[in-house]
């Protein structure tokens, strides 16, 4: 068996570092690229470099954007008094999907994790506090995951951001909508029981 040309080996190595691409896929893509139409490959390369050069983090909220401040931050129709705090830039896309959230975002860039050496200074909390002095924020919605770090970060934020006239809420967790009880695991169920709500009689 003849060895692969060095250029292909290098290409495979780069492809393998991408998420979701294993050694076999990397090899297949590399072999496809070196045999493809040169124009198509040039276009792909151009798209890669352009996308990387243009996309940046919004200076205000930290989401992915081509213009800073981003579309959401500069959109006058978005509710400037309502701020949603998320962990990663891509989380804003998840919250946007249902189309019901009309406020603005703030990306933390991670969550507190002493085991991985991530401390408050490593997150965009100072930026968030500065926004609170500049912007007319009335409510902060903390939309972090419910693992140990997510819960601890939420607790930390709620305490640190507490100030008069500011409401701090946490995204609810419990049963998936439209599903029966039998699909929930025990921990979810016990949390759902804890987070039970009154049913108003007159509604």
């Amino acid at each position, binding site marked *: 068996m003849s060895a692969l040309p060095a250029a292909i080996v290098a290409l495979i190595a780069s492809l393998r570092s991408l998420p979701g691409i294993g050694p076999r896929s990397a090899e297949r893509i590399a072999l496809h690229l070196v045999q493809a139409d040169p124009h198509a490959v040039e276009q792909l390369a151009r798209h890669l470099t352009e996308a990387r050069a243009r996309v940046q983090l919004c200076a205000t909220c930290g989401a992915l954007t081509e213009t800073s401040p981003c579309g959401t931050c500069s959109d006058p129709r978005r509710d400037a008094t309502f701020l949603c705090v998320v962990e990663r830039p891509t989380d804003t896309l998840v919250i946007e999907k249902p189309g019901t959230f009309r406020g603005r975002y703030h990306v933390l860039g991670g969550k507190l994790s002493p085991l991985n050496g991530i401390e408050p200074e490593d997150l965009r909390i100072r930026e968030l506090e500065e926004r609170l002095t500049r912007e007319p924020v009335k409510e902060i919605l903390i939309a972090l995951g419910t693992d140990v770090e997510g*819960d601890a970060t939420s607790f930390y934020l709620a305490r640190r951001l507490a100030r008069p006239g500011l409401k701090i809420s946490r995204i609810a967790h419990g049963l998936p909508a439209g599903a029966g009880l039998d699909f929930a*695991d025990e921990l979810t169920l016990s949390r759902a029981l804890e987070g039970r709500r009154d049913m108003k009689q007159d509604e």
Partner: protein
Amino acid sequence: MHLARLRLRDFRNYPRLDAEFAPGFHLLLGDNAQGKTNILEAVYLVATLRSFRGVGSAQMVRSGQKGYFVGSHIVGQGEHETKMYWSLRERNLSLDGMPVRKVTDYLGVLRTVVFCTEDLLLVKGPSRSRRRFLDLLLSQTSPAYLPLLQRYTRALRSRNAILKQPTINPLLLAGFSQELLQAGGEITQLRCELAPKISALARLACRRIASDTEDLQIEYLPSVKKDFTVELAQSAARERTYRTTVIGPHRDDLDLLLNGRSATQYGSEGQKRTLAIAMKVAQADYLTGLHGTPPILLIDDIMGELDLKRRTGLFPLLQRSRLARSQVFMTATEENWPEELGRDVQRWLVKEGGLCPLPATDS
């Protein structure tokens, strides 16, 4: 419930094994280092996904091979097929042909209780081994327990990492304290409910095995006496001195009292052995009571260490497994196999990583 078929590939010293087991007693005979305990280990692995010898999966791969495979056919309420493959690069676990996504969905397919010489650590060992006893039993019987314990451990390790920093951020610490308190409170509660039940069962077992004069009592000694929140706050100065969390379920223990005195300190060697077995019998009894069917008993070479009287004390347990069409797997060398078990035993010869049935004895 019984294990009808066991398939091993490159597991420990077995290159290949396909064995069928009927309900009842199985006596695995053979010289030392032939692979008797490895069979028990494989059965235990099917039930709990870990080794009772406290080793990682890498050590269970036959030397020079890449990975091991353990497959089983379980007959209980319904039939199940389990398959497990482990190598450094790949691990697969499937139940009835479907990949298992959550371990909690898998555990409970097969239930086992193992009796081995390491059980003595329950009495002689550090408090960690007694907490493990509680944890193992609770994760087998209460589905919420394992995720709870994992959350607690994560919060505890995070907290300890914060406490080891040169300057401690109090608000950051409080965030993880919150998690520690919530999971820890529930763990203490569950352990507290389990302990008296185990104590009552172990007391009966101890009487059967030893004599009526020995009265065993197991008391739960929670690290948190009353209110975790208050006590954690009170320990603030101490945890800053020791730079670690000094209070919580990770410091729990069980007090084993024989006739009102600590067995760990005052018990004789014989008493300690009896006590360890009594705790294991209690575990088996508890699982039987909860699920209605006895677990499979895996007895590793302890019969030889017990005198006739203590062996006799174990017979009701073995007898019940037989009557319920469950199974008992027992290892022994030819010299010390308990002959009084009688004739109704399937004897197997284990030799150099092979297993072959022996004809019934006429004696």
